[in-house]
């Protein structure tokens, strides 16, 4: 439910197209951005570094939300696509001696190309079959990560050099944070505008009813492939940033578990919602950390069943996903809208 503000008359198309509708929203978003940038000055390195992983997750989640949430093609390969981006970026920087600023978009484009290859079955298939095709992509790419040793270093992994401007290298927690968060903000901005554009509306039409979309002149194959490409591009960028963040890339990180993690992010956050991708990324990044702290504390209090508790960590993750799907199927973004609507109308909610 969307509730317009009292007195918010939209008198021109320009008014109607505003992303931030009222002054209050503009001020609060601006304040939030300022907060994002001054945040590391007051926080510990640990918090800053956690925020960096959240930023990377936001980019990845936006990507998978474009293909799954907006276009309705379930993707189970986002983790592997991130791996492609990370390895490609590292390869471009180490072997071809590109600076990071060229290597990262190039890695994104490489990943987009790989994503399009695995999106090809969408010429004839939809829904479930595509989900399984992306599952295959995940396993095939995982195999390549381990066996293409020239590019990926095999099971040992490979270093990822830090980006540099002149003599300044992005190798501290704070500089990594600023780089990541800037790209994440740009990604959010781009996605918000993408889904309002002609292409974005075509994506949504394909999701909502592909037959009607085709009748209205939307080329299904083109837009499905495009959504795969855009999504993989995001994954490639997120992967490059992940490489920068860890400084060392190993195939172990880009497993099916990572792909499932991203899928869980957008389901918990809200499918087809930019805000949902952000909420989901925050939730799914903080959840394992909270679980680690929680299970660690419990294991210390009850050392005898410590092993039991540790092994339940994975299970709790699954349980939370199940509970969310049963009790909050529209995700956190929906709940957020409801809370907002409640306060907007308070105390007369009718």
């Amino acid at each position, binding site marked *: 439910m969307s509730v317009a503000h009292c007195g918010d008359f939209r008198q021109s198309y320009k008014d109607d197209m505003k992303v931030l509708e009222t002054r209050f929203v503009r001020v609060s978003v601006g304040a939030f951005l300022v907060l994002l940038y001054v945040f590391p000055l007051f926080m510990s390195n640990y918090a800053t570094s956690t925020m960096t992983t959240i930023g990377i997750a936001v980019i990845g989640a936006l990507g998978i939300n474009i293909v*799954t949430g907006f276009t309705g093609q379930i993707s189970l390969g986002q983790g592997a696509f991130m791996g492609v981006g990370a390895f490609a970026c590292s390869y471009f920087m180490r072997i071809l001696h590109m600076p990071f600023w060229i290597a990262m978009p190039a890695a994104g484009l490489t990943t987009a190309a790989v994503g399009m290859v695995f999106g090809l*079955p969408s010429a004839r298939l939809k829904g479930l079959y595509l989900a399984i095709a992306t599952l295959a992509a995940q396993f095939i790419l995982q195999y390549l990560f381990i066996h293409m040793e020239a590019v990926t270093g095999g099971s040992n992994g490979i270093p990822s050099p830090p980006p540099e401007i002149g003599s300044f290298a992005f190798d501290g927690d704070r500089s990594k944070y600023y780089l990541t968060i800037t790209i994440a903000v740009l990604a959010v901005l781009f996605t918000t505008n993408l889904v309002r554009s002609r292409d974005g509306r075509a994506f949504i039409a394909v999701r909502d009813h592909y037959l009607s979309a085709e009748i209205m002149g939307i080329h299904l194959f083109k837009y499905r492939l495009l959504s795969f490409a855009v999504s993989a591009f995001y994954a490639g960028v997120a992967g490059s940033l992940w490489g920068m963040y860890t400084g060392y890339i190993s195939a172990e990180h880009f497993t099916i578990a990572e792909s499932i993690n991203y899928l869980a992010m957008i389901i918990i956050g809200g499918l087809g919602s930019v805000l949902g991708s952000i909420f989901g990324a925050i939730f799914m990044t903080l959840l394992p950390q909270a679980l680690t702290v929680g299970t660690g504390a419990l294991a210390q209090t009850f050392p005898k069943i410590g092993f039991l508790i540790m092994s339940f960590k994975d299970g709790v993750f*699954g349980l939370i996903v199940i509970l969310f799907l049963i009790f909050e199927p529209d995700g956190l973004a929906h709940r957020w809208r409801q809370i907002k609507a409640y306060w907007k109308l308070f105390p007369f909610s009718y």
Partner: protein
Amino acid sequence: MEFYIQLVISGLVLGSIYALVALGFAIIFKSTSVVNFAQGELLMFGAYYCFSMVVQYKIPWFWAFLLTLVFSIVLALLVERLVLRPMIGEPVISIIMVTIGLSSVLRSIVTAVWGTQIQVYEPPLFPETAVNLMGIPTSQVYLWSFGLAAVLLGLFGLFFKFSKAGVAMRATAFSNQVALSMGIPVKNIFALAWCIAAVVSAIGGVLIGSINGINIQLGHFGLKVFPAVILGGLDSILGAAVGGIIVGVLENLSDGVLKSAFGLQGIKEVAPFVFLVLILMVKPYGLFGKKEIERV
């Protein structure tokens, strides 16, 4: 030559177990249109439970096996009632995700109860002496597994063709609404589908466990079943059986051939998925699947 025949034989055995698990998958998909990503975990649970009965409680094999089947049914009923039933009518992606969540819950329960070490059935289910099959020594486990899987597949074929419950399941698969209006208790059919799937998976788990030993990696079996069901056609029960066997043989052969010819390692893990992509590009609805024809 003998090398290749052995590859084919072990491929057939592996394939017949794939076929069993794929059968379970196809039954669930056909009657409830749920894509079950937790199929491999059902298999693992069955294998571990049987291990508990046989090794830890020293129950004779026959009773242990029966208890495993009963346990699988209970597990399936619980899962269906608590997790899947609230999801009826939700979009495909939520249902996929809920089964993924389920798989991680089941896996963590297995780790908590049985640990992560590789376990073996002691005493073994089948005698360990090899028999001579057309001049090629073959272990009895292989023969039994293949035979048992073939018999089960045949039995389920007859069940769907002739028994009342089987016909009701096919009707439900065709259309939930029509089945309801014909007085078929669709909810019970859903529960039955899950029970059958859990039982065949548990049997598959015990068989594969007595060949390779049981460990937490058994869960991956559930994902490797996708190539089999896609090759056979996602909604075809015969297709699941045929697809499973073909994929098993192809997987083993390509692994053996590529290893001896090019020295490539670990092809086994990835070969089924390469087939999968090829099938999807060439013949997306599989060998026996129902083609969806839409015209605009």
